[in-house]
């Protein structure tokens, strides 16, 4: 759901292509991925589809759509599969952002799957393997001097890949890529999210690493925008499902869409979702403009988007009644995915806390 006539045409075209791809290749598998996890070869297929590096300039191997385009793509993808969209959002926001920030072209090429033949994608350590993101989330603490040994404490929920994780320490000044095979992973059903936990585990960091707090903030903002975009996509999907259902479901002799209680749920959901989307569009534009203060805008967008998504998905489930509680309709999955978005990177509380300083400065 872009803004025709306002956004660059190439972003509209890109989102249109992703919508077609999503309906044909992604949506039919979404329920199965939710149950069994994403296909092993999906990362390779995503590389082939051009879904890696949407925000990366064309001359560096990407789609050249910037964060605005990446947000629009993630929003559209989430309407087809939240599990896939959140993985791509973290890959694009965190890992690809790290490579861009470091100016590490070999790493960037690897993350985009550029130049890799499809058959070489198979296997857990293939070049196109997922790279996830650990934000400065609660319980996560990474300490150690750049170039030395990083010690990780705590546990976090994120979408780890088979290859590596981007880690930002609680203080926001440690950024690094850590081999994920050193982490204790617990699989979970649903949402494509997995638990990664560690307790005072020493990890030898042999990948690019920096103590750049500015880069950490930039990556965090990228992740916020894209996770927020996923939430907006989930909300749009839920509202769409609810509108269709309310038109055909008849109770008391008429479609339930005729009842004001249903109409207001839909009106509130669409308003909150659109407001959050505008915040994210604004934040993405500021990131593309290189605005150092974009992280506050991004946090506002993510906070609003996740709240809007949980509310819209819950109300969509309510509109579906008993059907909505079953897996026969996708709204129960959308609700789980929306709720899980608050556990990806920064949760509601962390976002509010992050915003406090900026608000104090603005309104002083």
């Amino acid at each position: 759901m872009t803004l025709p006539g306002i956004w660059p045409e190439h972003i509209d075209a890109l989102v249109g292509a992703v919508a077609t791809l999503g309906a044909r290749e992604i949506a039919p598998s979404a329920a199965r991925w939710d149950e069994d996890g994403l296909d092993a070869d999906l990362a390779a297929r995503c590389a082939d589809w051009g879904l890696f590096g949407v925000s990366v300039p064309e001359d560096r191997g990407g789609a050249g759509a910037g964060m605005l385009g990446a947000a629009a793509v993630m929003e559209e993808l989430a309407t087809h599969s939240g599990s896939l969209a959140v993985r791509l959002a973290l890959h694009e926001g965190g890992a690809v952002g790290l490579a861009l920030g470091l100016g590490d072209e070999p790493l960037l090429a690897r993350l985009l799957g550029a130049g890799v033949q499809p058959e070489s994608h198979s296997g857990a350590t293939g070049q196109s393997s997922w790279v996830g993101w650990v934000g400065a989330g609660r319980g996560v603490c990474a300490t150690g001097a750049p170039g030395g040994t990083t010690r990780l404490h705590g546990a976090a929920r994120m979408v780890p890949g088979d290859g590596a994780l981007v880690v930002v320490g609680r203080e926001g000044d440690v950024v690094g890529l850590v081999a994920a095979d050193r982490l204790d992973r617990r699989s979970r059903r649903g949402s494509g999210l997995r638990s990664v936990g560690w307790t005072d585990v020493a990890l030898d960091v042999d990948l690019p690493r920096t103590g750049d707090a500015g880069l950490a903030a930039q990556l965090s903002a990228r992740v916020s925008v894209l996770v927020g975009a996923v939430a907006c996509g989930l909300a749009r999907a839920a509202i769409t499902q609810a509108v269709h259902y309310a038109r055909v479901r008849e109770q008391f002799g008429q479609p339930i869409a005729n009842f004001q209680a249903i109409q207001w749920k839909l009106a509130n959901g669409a308003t909150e979702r659109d407001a959050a989307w505008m915040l994210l569009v604004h934040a993405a534009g500021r990131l593309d403009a290189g605005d150092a203060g974009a992280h506050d805008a991004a946090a506002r967008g993510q906070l609003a988007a996740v709240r809007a998504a949980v509310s819209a998905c819950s109300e969509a489930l309510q509109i579906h009644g008993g059907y909505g509680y079953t897996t026969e309709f996708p709204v129960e999955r959308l609700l789980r995915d929306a709720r899980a978005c608050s556990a990806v990177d920064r949760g509601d509380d962390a976002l509010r806390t992050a915003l406090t300083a900026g608000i104090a400065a603005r309104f002083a």
Partner: protein
Amino acid sequence: MFDIEPGSPEHGVQQLAAHVADDVLRPRAAELDRRGGFPTDSLAALSAAGLMGIAVPRELGGLQAGALAYSLAVTELAHACAATTVALCVNNMVAEVLAHFGTPEQRSVHVPKLCNGEHVVGAFALSEAGAGSDPAGMRTRARRTDRGWVIDGSKLWITSGSDAGLFVVWAKTSDDPGTRGISTFLVPGDTPGLSRGKPEHKLGLRGSTTCAIEFASCEVGPDALLDEVGRGFRVAMMALDGGRIGIASQALGIGRAATMAAAAWTRDRYGERDVPQGVSFALADSAMELDAAALLTTRAAWLKTTGQPFSHQASMAKLMASERAFAACNRALAMMGPEGQDCDGVVERLFRDVRVTMIYEGTSEVQRVVVSRDIARRFEDAR
């Protein structure tokens, strides 16, 4: 207004439920959620403890402890395992319906079996694909014959449908418009013509089966009719009024469990340090809202126990308890972040389980209709 002092019968039942919850339900809850299925053994333990007929008269095998004791017990049990508790709730509702509307023979034949587990559990077969909130859309029909009745049609979302030994079934017995012409029947689970669908895959309550039930030329005797012909809607509404106290209590148990888990997480995380207000205020809101809902639920249960009208009070209780319990679970998940989302953790399950309390036995919208109609009457009277 009501008294739950230590030593009172209500307190005794609450303590009994708390013990069974700790000893039987809680240790099995996570595994039951993971593998799904039906909690046969746990329900047998609840039967043995006498909790399958809490408000049922003693001479029919119940505890005769009243609706308040029932509410307190359900809250304790749902705190441990909401999935097992919903089967108990429906069984208690079915047993009470029979005890209230049944003939002496119906009562003596079926109610003791519902209380002692011989029927495994009872099921309440009202909803249909096109008749959820609106029973007038019912299509299941019962035709009178020389030998009794023949039922044809299908029911949907029947709790415990996979294993229930006795179904209370609603069917149209005439073409009268609206809810007139609906009658109620008792159909044993092994009656030829009754078939059970595959359990639905659900967001939560995965340890409780929810099935479609088909009736194809399902023949029952004249003694299967419960109450009078054409009075089924009244039977259903009276049953649901009481059932809503049960669901409100179930929601309270789930909401309290989530809030307790969040409080324990807060202790572990912050220890002796100051707890941020974002966390402590969220816990305060949950505790306050759940307490308010508990008082509404207790009021409705006390009115029912003392034989007073309680319909709109039960709707208020269910509306408040289910929505505030969902909010409490939602807050706990948001507060706990990644740790709350962990599928091995209890809060993620509670979040999935609690959501249906805003839907079954009357959606929140239906409760608002009931409450708003009563408000209209009250304000009309006051003029």
